[in-house]
């Protein structure tokens, strides 16, 4: 199985370029150490030409956010008939859009915090501002306002009062034309990584513990890297852990994912899990949760990267 020619695609122009560079370099080194022939490609306008020249047996997509995680590069690889890692075009599109994801979860009976979502046209052309008060009452305060395109935590705002909503909307709308307003569910943050396609394997649950919380404003800190500790496996009652795992798999399947992925949860004070989102290309950096989960399952980083690579398909 060694010796395969792999292109690792990383970088690109998304806001998560830096994370992608670090995931990409690490993946490249891991593959080389297992005997693969690796060419790293920092994605730019020459991508397609280079792929045509190199004709790799597998493209390892180590990109995050726009372009790499939203089905764009997946579509190109389909056209070029190059097998690639991770989810296909449709699943990527579904998971990249937090709103679409939540509609699918809701339809599938998977618990996700109550929400509403808008395109900026609703405000510009239909006077949606007059619904904000109703939304606040509907969802209950505080409300989290997020750009619909999932990925970067940038642009996520927190409205403690209804009158904070418009400014939060503008910030979120700076990042995407569509925004999600979601009830803020206080609780523990769990990340569940999944590996495989036909019979996906759930890796040990990771809990992210912000170093200081307690007040609403600490909400911001959970999106600030370096201010979080991880516990693997998370300390959970067996029936709670089983339910979280079941829902993680249900989410993975509902979105039609393959290869690998990570489902993010909030576990509320009553120990009820709520699915927030699914990442089709979770980070694989030194500080990312998926490698931690793999390690807890007895898989080295190299094992993890090889497993993902060998699951590549068209």
């Amino acid at each position, binding site marked *: 199985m060694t010796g395969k020619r792999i292109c690792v695609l990383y970088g690109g122009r998304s806001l998560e370029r830096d994370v992608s560079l670090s995931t990409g370099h690490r993946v490249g080194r891991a593959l080389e150490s297992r005997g693969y022939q690796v060419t790293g490609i920092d994605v730019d306008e020459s991508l397609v030409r280079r792929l045509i020249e190199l004709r790799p047996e597998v493209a390892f997509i180590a990109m995050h956010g726009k372009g790499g995680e939203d089905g764009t590069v997946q579509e190109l690889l389909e056209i070029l008939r190059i097998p690639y890692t991770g989810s296909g075009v449709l699943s990527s599109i579904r998971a990249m859009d937090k709103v679409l994801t939540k509609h699918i979860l809701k339809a599938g009976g998977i618990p996700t915090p109550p929400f509403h979502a808008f395109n900026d046209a609703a*405000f*510009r052309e239909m006077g949606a501002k007059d619904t904000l008060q109703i939304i606040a009452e509907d969802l209950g305060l505080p409300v989290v306002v997020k750009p619909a395109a999932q990925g970067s935590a*940038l642009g996520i705002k927190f409205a403690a009062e209804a009158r904070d909503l*418009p*400014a939060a*909307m*503008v*910030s979120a709308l*700076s990042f995407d034309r569509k925004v999600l307003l979601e009830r803020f569910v206080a609780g523990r943050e769990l990340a569940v990584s999944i590996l495989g396609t036909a019979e996906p394997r759930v890796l040990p649950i990771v809990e992210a513990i912000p170093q200081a919380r307690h007040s609403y404003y600490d909400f911001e800190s959970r999106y600030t890297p370096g201010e979080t500790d991880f516990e693997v496996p998370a300390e959970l009652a067996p029936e709670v852990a089983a339910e979280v795992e079941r829902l993680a798999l249900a989410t993975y399947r509902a979105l039609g994912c393959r290869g690998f992925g990570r489902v993010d949860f909030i576990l509320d004070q009553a120990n009820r899990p709520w699915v927030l989102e699914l990442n089709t290309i979770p980070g694989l950096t030194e500080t990312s949760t998926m490698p931690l989960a793999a390690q807890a399952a007895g898989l080295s980083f190299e094992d993890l990267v090889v497993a993902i690579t060998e699951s590549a398909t068209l």
Partner: protein
Amino acid sequence: MDPAHVLITTGGQQAIDLVTKTFVDPGDVVLAEGPSYAGALTTFSTYETDVLHLPMDERGLDVEAVPDILDRLAADRKRVKFLYIVPNFSNPGGTTLSLERRHRLVEISAERELLIVEDNPYGILRYQGEPLPTLFTLDQSENVIYLGSFSKILSPGIRTGWIAAPAPILAKIAFGKQATDLCSSPLNQMFVHEFISSGVWREYVQRLIGIYRSRRDVLLSALADEFPPGSRWTVPEGGFFVWASLSPPVNTTDLLVKAIEENVAFVAGNGFYMDGQGTDSMRLNFSGSPEDRIQEGIRRLGSVIRDQMELYRALGMDG
């Protein structure tokens, strides 16, 4: 000037660092312009100072506000260590301290024994008006420390600047300099020496002035054409920057995200304050881009601002 009163530093930034390290203990107050050079603010916060921003207008720092502020701080038992100021074509404000205010500030500094740190990396790059005397030359009471740099007239990579100060002050700073890096690269200093002593710098700086003046003029006229009514901006007589403020509730941090999508960048205003001000403002640089790009950049920025304002109106936030 007596060379004994000059200390060569590794750029102006090290000069700021050395002065701060020498004079400030954690919790001391440093007075700064509002807005103030972000690199200096970073240094001040590294040494755990309390930065207090002073008000400014088109003639620079409002020096008449200084005595009252000093009284208030004294009443609160706060120790003010120095006032940091960029009197010529301030970064980021673009403003220049008027002659009367210079005289007055030096007077206040003598009366109140207030140490002034005068940072002047842009002074030679003047595009209109007469040069004004530095605070350092006006000072008779040994209360001004002057910081210079070759970064803006030769090259930032040459990392050569200097501190001019009264001998007792300089001796203390030199002590800190030794602890930091013994001395700045003599090789770089030889380059600078050659550049200056050969006289080529005069012609070079004249050329820069011509280029930058045209770029400034293009930026100012583009702003007048493209920015929406209610926007304000400074008209710098030199230097690199224009400071533009938009009518509320526009937030320039949000705006920057949209601007970058259009391949236009600026520095959001709140980076030049330690106290959360500046969210309605931005620093625009005109020295680094050719005229047609400045024109096009401001055109795009203008349309991003209008679009953002429309969104605020749609959200009922137009005040």
